[in-house]
């Protein structure tokens, strides 16, 4: 670390890493969309296209001991957290080599070794879980931050309000990260919230909050450093609203009847990878060759992940009911 805990790191190496992580997510998911059309991946598939700067800006700021609760749009979070791309891709396939043994699929990536507590496909359902994780760490005297990601759609759920209240009331070290992409599936923010400035919700619970341009990875990282530092030092919750936009449909089934193509096109130039690349180039921090090199490396990683998933095996049907209950040696 060359900078103090709450200050952004502007080294060239770090900037390249931010870019690399965003490209990793984008290209991984582009491959997933392609595999979906080939019916290699089934079920729901929610892509993070346009929102990558949030996971990439926030998660590397966390420490290994910290915990993460994510949503069903969590491929990027898992990858940035360090869940191997091979096992993430195998999970997308439903193979037993997947990070959730193939049982979860796209929406339920779990990884105990990185304290990744899952993709949760119940909107708002992860928030109470994060409260409990943080409560346990606090009661055990551990200085652990629990980062809880959720969309702005979750803000309309009762569990959001119950959880913010509990976090503030009990003084729990939770970093709430609201990924505000303006649509709860197809329902625009204006149709679901009386107060559309989401960060203000936190004030009702006396939780410190800020909003940040969620498509500017440097800004997200700077805000995340402030936020994580504050949570760790104070032991209290912090609310970070990351304003972003989902460039792809909600899922692969979504015909996007609720928004104009023009609206999407208006947002496209703002997308985090192009923006960051241009910024790096205009500041002479990166050479086009380096971008090509990153892309080639990422493509090789993706090819290896696909090969891993293809070579993976189907769980024998005889094991269908395993892990509904614990077996001897299972984690409590």
């Amino acid at each position, binding site marked *: 670390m060359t900078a103090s805990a709450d200050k952004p790191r502007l080294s060239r190496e770090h900037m390249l890493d931010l870019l690399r992580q965003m490209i990793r997510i984008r290209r991984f998911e582009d491959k997933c969309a392609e595999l979906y059309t080939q019916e290699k991946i089934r079920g729901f598939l929610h892509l993070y296209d346009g929102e990558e700067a949030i996971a990439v800006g926030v998660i590397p700021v966390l420490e290994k001991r910290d915990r993460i609760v994510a949503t069903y749009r969590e491929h990027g979070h898992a990858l940035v957290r360090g869940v191997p791309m091979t096992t993430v891709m195998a999970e997308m396939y439903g193979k037993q080599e997947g990070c959730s043994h193939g049982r979860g699929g796209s929406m339920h990536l*779990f990884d105990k070794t990185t304290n990744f507590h899952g993709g949760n496909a119940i909107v708002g359902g992860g928030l*109470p879980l994060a409260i409990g994780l943080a409560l*346990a*760490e606090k009661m055990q005297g551990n200085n652990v931050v629990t980062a809880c990601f959720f969309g702005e759609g979750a803000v309309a759920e009762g569990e959001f309000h119950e*959880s913010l209240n509990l976090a503030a009331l009990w003084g729990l070290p939770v970093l709430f990260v609201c990924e505000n992409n303006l649509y709860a599936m197809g329902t625009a923010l204006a149709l679901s919230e009386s107060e559309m400035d989401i960060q203000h919700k936190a004030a009702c619970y006396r939780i410190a909050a800020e909003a940040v341009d969620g498509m500017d990875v440097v800004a997200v990282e700077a805000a995340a450093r402030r936020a994580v530092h504050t949570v760790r030092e104070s032991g209290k919750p912090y609310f970070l609203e990351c304003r972003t936009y989902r460039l792809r449909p909600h899922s692969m089934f979504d015909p996007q009847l609720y928004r104009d193509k023009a609206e999407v096109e208006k947002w496209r130039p703002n997308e985090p990878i192009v923006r960051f690349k241009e910024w790096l180039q205009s500041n002479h921090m990166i050479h086009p060759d380096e971008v090509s090199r990153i892309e080639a490396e990422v493509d090789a990683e993706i090819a290896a992940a696909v090969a891993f998933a293809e070579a993976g095996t189907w769980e024998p049907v005889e094991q269908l009911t395993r892990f509904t209950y614990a077996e001897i040696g299972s984690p409590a």
Partner: protein
Amino acid sequence: MQDQTAQSGTKEITYREAVREALRDALKRDSRVFLMGEDVGRYGGCYAVSHGLLAEFGPERIRDTPLSESGFTGAGIGAAMAGLRPIVEVMTVNFSLLALDQILNTAATVRHMSGNQFGVPVVIRMATGAGRQLAAQHSHSLEGWYAHIPGIKVLAPATLEDARGMLWTALQDPEPVLIFENDMMYNLAGKLAADAGPVDISKAAVRRSGRDVSLITYGGSLWKTLEAATALATEGIEAEVIDLRSLRPLDDATIMASVAKTRRAVIVDEGWRSGSLAAEIGMRIVEQSFWSLDAPIGRVCSEEVPVPYPRHLEIAALPQAPKIVAAAKAALGRK
């Protein structure tokens, strides 16, 4: 715990006190255990079960919560995942519906969905049942709904021994365990062994042995069923009474062994009849013991109506000993 009776002796105790002793014992034995729920601390528990525990264990471990059933039940689930052993108290099963999302979509699914990486060793206690004229939002028996869910275990302690002994065993279990305490039983008094401790939570118990008909029940209905069995005995009918104890998993072996002996079965369940736990048990008997049966299986369940307030209507809505006697006699072809 203050009882001075010799180890081999017994002591007078209520069901409420037995649950409290179980809580106190667990809190003393395991520093990871804590109790949280609405009014468990300063108020002493809605049914006075946790009275006195706040003074003994402090507000961190006897944790009053806001009226946020989903929030604090989910918090219990998360805390269990992170290494603690929370006991979540939900005031009544009716209120637990506000936490059903967390219980079903998180607690019951996480082990499977994560490929066995995470377990949720939480215990969730709640009151169930009618009989106190609390009307249609505080009186239902929905434990059968919970017993439908793979991934959790469901217990119904009906005796002082089980009220005292099931909690610790449930806390040792790697799964989410729901414990349903029938609210008519909190004042139940009787003798309990001074050294009573943890009990098995996997087997049903034969509470009365008999050869003529099997009466299969659980929870608060056990006492009405035993009363019915006593009445039947005066007419020369020897009923066997099975206390299920665990509603999920069900102990089929004990049920089938009894039916093989008596060849007749009546199920007593305070839940509504349609889609009930009684229906499940009846079907299992049909599947596994059809050729042993000498008579159609009978059921005594709650009437299909929201539980009414007036005393006489509430009594009429619930299983009662005379109805159980009548059902048992019908199974025997007697009037």
